[in-house]
């Protein structure tokens, strides 16, 4: 039988077997595996479907049959996390792609130092109970962010302060890395929820009074009685809309069911958000778990804040009395 050049997979297999025997003296390994490629190649050529076995198991069988001891248990004992890490890094740096990745990570490492400071800032904002996305907004929060970023960078730059220091650093990195996930989720949620408001057919930021969003509008007639279904437009003919059309409220006294403000259907089939007061519609978690209006459910009127307001005085040429509706309204409640 003619032996041709060894297939790459066999050369590779033999290399792995030798690697698995590397705890033995080099000349023993050489003796033990001398002619291995030829033997393997011949067996392989005889049965093409044959699969090469696990190189480590093969090496084990080889060394046992040859009467060599199994590798020292020291080499097989469970590695400590630090050793596992070192081992992984050395394996990675062993091949071109792996070492390219390591080089890249080494370069962007300071980015993580900065991110770490921002993550802690985000969490402090969440823990402080402030509403909105956990990103710095005002001067105080930005100052905090800068301080934490500087602290984070300085902490990593101060190297080799003993094992305790290194362990604390590894622990802090792990905790921070894990804390990134909910933080990013929160930021995404905070930004997406406003997009959804826009996507629901709502035209814009809507009415604001003293910096607070107007949730509903109540109209009273000249006699001071509440009226329903008033359509409101601004000076440019744009529908007046409130800022939070999904403002939720209780549907009943016990608040067992909640509802949200809903739009009104117009005669032309369109739906309008500028028909006031907005009515409530039942609001339940849908099959995906997010709350949404129950389609076709009856809508309910929202009680006006004031049952009656003062009637409007008839127009008179001499009437120049200044108007102050909120105060008058509260006095008459």
């Amino acid at each position: 039988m003619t032996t041709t050049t060894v297939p790459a997979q066999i050369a590779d297999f033999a290399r792995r077997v030798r690697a698995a025997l590397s705890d033995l003296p080099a000349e023993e390994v050489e003796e033990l595996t001398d002619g291995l490629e030829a033997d393997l190649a011949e067996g392989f050529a005889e049965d093409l479907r044959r699969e090469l076995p696990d190189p480590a198991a093969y090496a084990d069988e080889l060394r046992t049959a040859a009467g060599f001891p199994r590798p020292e248990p020291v080499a097989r004992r469970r590695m400590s996390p630090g050793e596992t890490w070192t081992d992984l890094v050395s394996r990675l740096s062993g091949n071109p792609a792996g070492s390219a990745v390591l080089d890249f990570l080494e370069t962007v490492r300071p980015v993580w130092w900065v991110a770490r400071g921002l993550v802690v800032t985000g969490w402090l904002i969440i823990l402080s109970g402030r509403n909105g996305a956990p990103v710095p907004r005002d001067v105080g929060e930005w100052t905090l962010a800068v301080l934490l970023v500087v602290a984070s960078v300085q902490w990593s730059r101060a190297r080799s302060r003993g094992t305790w220091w290194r362990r604390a650093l590894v622990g802090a990195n792990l905790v921070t890395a894990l804390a990134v996930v909910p933080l990013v989720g929160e930021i995404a949620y905070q930004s997406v929820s406003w997009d959804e408001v826009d996507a629901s057919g709502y035209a814009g930021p809507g009415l604001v009074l003293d910096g607070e969003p107007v949730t509903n509008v109540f109209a009273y007639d000249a006699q001071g009685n509440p009226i329903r279904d008033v359509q409101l437009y601004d000076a440019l003919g744009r529908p007046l809309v409130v800022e939070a059309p999904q403002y939720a409220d209780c549907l009943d006294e016990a608040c067992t069911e909640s509802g949200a403000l809903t739009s009104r259907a117009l005669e032309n089939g369109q739906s309008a958000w500028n028909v006031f007061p907005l009515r409530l519609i039942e609001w339940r978690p849908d099959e995906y778990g997010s709350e949404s209006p129950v389609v076709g459910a009856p809508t309910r009127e929202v009680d006006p804040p004031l049952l009656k307001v003062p009637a409007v005085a008839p127009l008179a040429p001499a009437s120049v009395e200044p108007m102050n509706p909120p105060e008058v309204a509260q006095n008459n409640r």
Partner: protein
Amino acid sequence: MDATQLLKGVLDLAVLAVVEKEDGYGYDVVRRLRAAGLGEVGEASVYGTLRRLYSAGALTSYVVPSEEGPHRKYYGMNDQGRATLAAQRKVWADFTTTMEHVLTGEAA
């Protein structure tokens, strides 16, 4: 009990017997053992055994270069090997006789 376990104890004997007939390289020895009916024999076990018998001085070894591929390592018999084989044959013969007696219930 399976044949693989039994084989471990007598692999030296089987390998020596095969090489005694004719010099052979690793896979050649494996093939001859399998052809003789030892289908379960592991290649690495045979190669390791050859290597151990050689180290113990029971086999000679020589390399045959190949023009097109890797060289082959042949193993051959020497006097010490023949002596070992003879001694092991005797042990095996005694052992099988004893086992026969045990299994058939006859007195030894």
